[in-house]
């Protein structure tokens, strides 16, 4: 069955139109990634409506390719301008920029592209092998386990986002509450609709995420007095691809960093921005000769770039098997599935296997296209970094408006998108992350349904969540993940250590 699905996905992705869309998605990703200030998540969100008119498998594969392309694209501005195109390319600056300054920008791009390609391929391979097995296991989950998975996902996302854990968890909880607006799935009663008929079907998730990810970014692009990309750009004149000797020296670093990227991607709430630093520091730690890092060491570029591309496949594993998005970009991809009527969760690997396996194979081809397009067009793409953010910002707004209207042919949705945009802007200003809110909006329905079903099964006894071993373990982990980042937890650990030392 799994083999059949894998083969079906492969034949589906090989259709010329699908390959064309994957190449298009990768090119857009490269373009978006190379522009400082634009994120892959925002690009996926505003281009999501484009998939309405397409076959779901082809449309989602295009968006996943965009995600992959943006990961490499982010290194272009990092290497040339010392400004990461995406947060995931932050560590690439450390050695990419010095190498370019020494007169080898082509070599820096070549290492970045090769490492991105290998990292992406490894992550796609892990996704293809691990996801079906995990998906099979997830099919055994009942409402009790699903509730525990959702709680764990939510607490990990809330506690691992950058900045304050409390703000992350608060953002996620608000997202969950907003997701409950609409008809209650168990009793069929309208909930928190305030008499507004547009809210009977709930807050359209895609509208909310377009608003949360595009409008704040558009305002952010114009609010800064100084533009970041004003420097002179020298054309790339040196050779791009590394020689076999150079490649052999880098392969261990690339493989190790790819592993780090996949594992980091697997953990909900962590993404390319965490993975790139983790891999960079490990490359430094494992290096026999530790000198030269920060001055243009090829291992520095290779580690960061392999890791951030490897995150893509890793982040898709919990997304496709459990319906828990590993990052904000995969949350938007889930939104893409939802607009086509495909609900996230374990059934993605069975009932919607055609879409899921096409998407997985799409990642392999996105990597191949990324390598080819990167080799052919990186020299030209460097000029994209010079486009003024003030030109881009109004166009982002227009695309957000058109996209949010296209979902239900409704002006109410456009207004809702704008309100979520303003909300997202203020959340950014107080450093409250928007990703947990989006994930709360996705998981709210699953939370509510699985909780009510579990309590119906146990006739109202909450002990049901502790009777199932899987659920008990997951909920204990959730409790630890929420507590581990609180000052209280640190205090307990310090007191415990002190006591142990005193006893000894």
């Amino acid at each position, binding site marked *: 069955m799994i083999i059949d699905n894998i083969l079906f996905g492969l034949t589906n992705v090989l259709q010329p139109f699908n390959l064309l869309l994957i190449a298009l998605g990768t090119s857009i990703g490269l373009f978006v990634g190379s522009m400082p200030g634009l994120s892959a998540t925002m690009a996926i969100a505003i281009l999501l*409506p*484009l998939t*309405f*008119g397409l076959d779901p498998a082809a449309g989602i594969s295009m968006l996943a390719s965009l995600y992959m392309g943006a990961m490499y694209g982010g290194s272009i501005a990092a290497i040339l301008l*010392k*400004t*990461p195109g995406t947060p995931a390319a*932050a560590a690439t600056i*450390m050695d990419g920029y010095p190498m370019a300054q020494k007169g080898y920008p082509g070599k820096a791009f070549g290492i970045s592209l090769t490492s991105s390609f290998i990292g992406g391929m490894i992550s796609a391979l892990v996704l293809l092998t691990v996801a079906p097995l995990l998906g099979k296991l997830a099919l055994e989950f009942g409402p009790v386990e699903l509730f525990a998975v959702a709680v764990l996902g939510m607490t990990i996302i809330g506690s691992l986002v950058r900045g*304050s854990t*409390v*703000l992350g*968890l*608060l953002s996620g*909880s*608000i997202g*969950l*509450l907003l997701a*409950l607006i609409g008809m*209650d799935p*168990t*009793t069929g*009663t309208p*909930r*928190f609709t305030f008499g507004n008929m547009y809210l009977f079907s709930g807050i359209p998730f895609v509208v909310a995420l377009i608003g949360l990810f595009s*409008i704040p970014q*558009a*305002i952010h692009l*114009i*609010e*800064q*007095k*100084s*533009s*970041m990309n004003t420097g002179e750009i020298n054309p790339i004149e040196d050779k791009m691809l590394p020689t076999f000797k150079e490649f052999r020296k880098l392969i261990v670093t690339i493989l190790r960093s790819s592993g780090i990227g996949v594992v980091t991607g697997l953990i909900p709430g962590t993404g390319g921005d965490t993975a790139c*630093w983790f891999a*960079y520091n490990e490359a430094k730690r494992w290096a026999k000769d530790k000198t030269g890092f*920060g001055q243009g060491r090829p291992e520095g570029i290779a580690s960061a770039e392999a890791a951030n591309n490897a995150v893509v496949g890793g982040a898709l594993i919990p997304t496709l098997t459990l319906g828990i998005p590993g990052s904000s970009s995969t949350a938007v991809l889930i939104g893409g599935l939802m607009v086509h009527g495909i609900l996230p969760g374990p059934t993605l690997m069975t009932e919607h296997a055609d879409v899921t396996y096409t998407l997985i194979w799409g990642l392999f081809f996105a990597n191949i296209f990324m390598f080819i397009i990167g080799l052919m067009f990186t020299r030209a793409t460097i000029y994209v970094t010079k486009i003024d953010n*003030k*030109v881009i*910002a*109004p*166009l982002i707004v*227009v*695309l957000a*408006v*058109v996209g949010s*209207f*296209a979902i239900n*042919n409704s002006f109410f949705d*456009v*207004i809702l998108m*704008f309100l979520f945009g*303003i909300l997202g*802007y203020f959340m950014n200003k*107080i450093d*409250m992350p928007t990703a947990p809110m989006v994930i709360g909006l996705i998981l709210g329905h699953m*939370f509510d349904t699985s*909780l*009510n079903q579990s309590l119906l099964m146990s006739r109202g006894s909450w002990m049901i969540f502790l009777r199932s071993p899987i659920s008990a373990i997951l909920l204990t982990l959730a409790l630890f993940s929420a507590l581990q980042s609180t000052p209280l937890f640190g205090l307990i650990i310090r007191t415990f250590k002190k006591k142990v030392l005193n006893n000894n």
Partner: protein
Amino acid sequence: MFKALWKYFLTAALVLTMAGVFYSRTGKLPSMAKRFPIILIYIIVFFTILMLVEQILKFVNKDKPKKKKKKNNEPEWEDAVGEINYLKAFIFAVMIGVYVFTLKSLGYFIVTPIFIVVAFMYLKSTSLRNSILITLGFNLFVYLVFVKFLNLPIPMGILS
């Protein structure tokens, strides 16, 4: 202290008001439909209070000397972010609001070119000639992709 933390006090007030409004609405719901929302409302209130405590503690401990722990080599670009022009951000947000609210009556193909050109002029993005050319090109792109290729709806307003 209030001056330094006003953003968080305002956030707490707004979140607690929202939680209060939602809580008041749970009274009419069947017990099963209100179970999860009520749990969430309690959690939201708890985290809101925790947020305030955290920010107040941060403010109180702000002046205490700290041992700086360097996790990794933070790049210089993080310091290169320019000063924020809130007035410009506010005016741009108002422009977006006007654009969104006039879309229904006037339609996409009338309001959008006006919005883009006015925004470009206000932000001093490019010359008037380039603004008009970009606007025409962009709208043609949206028309071809959304209307012609994907058959997606576009608000036509008075042109319908």
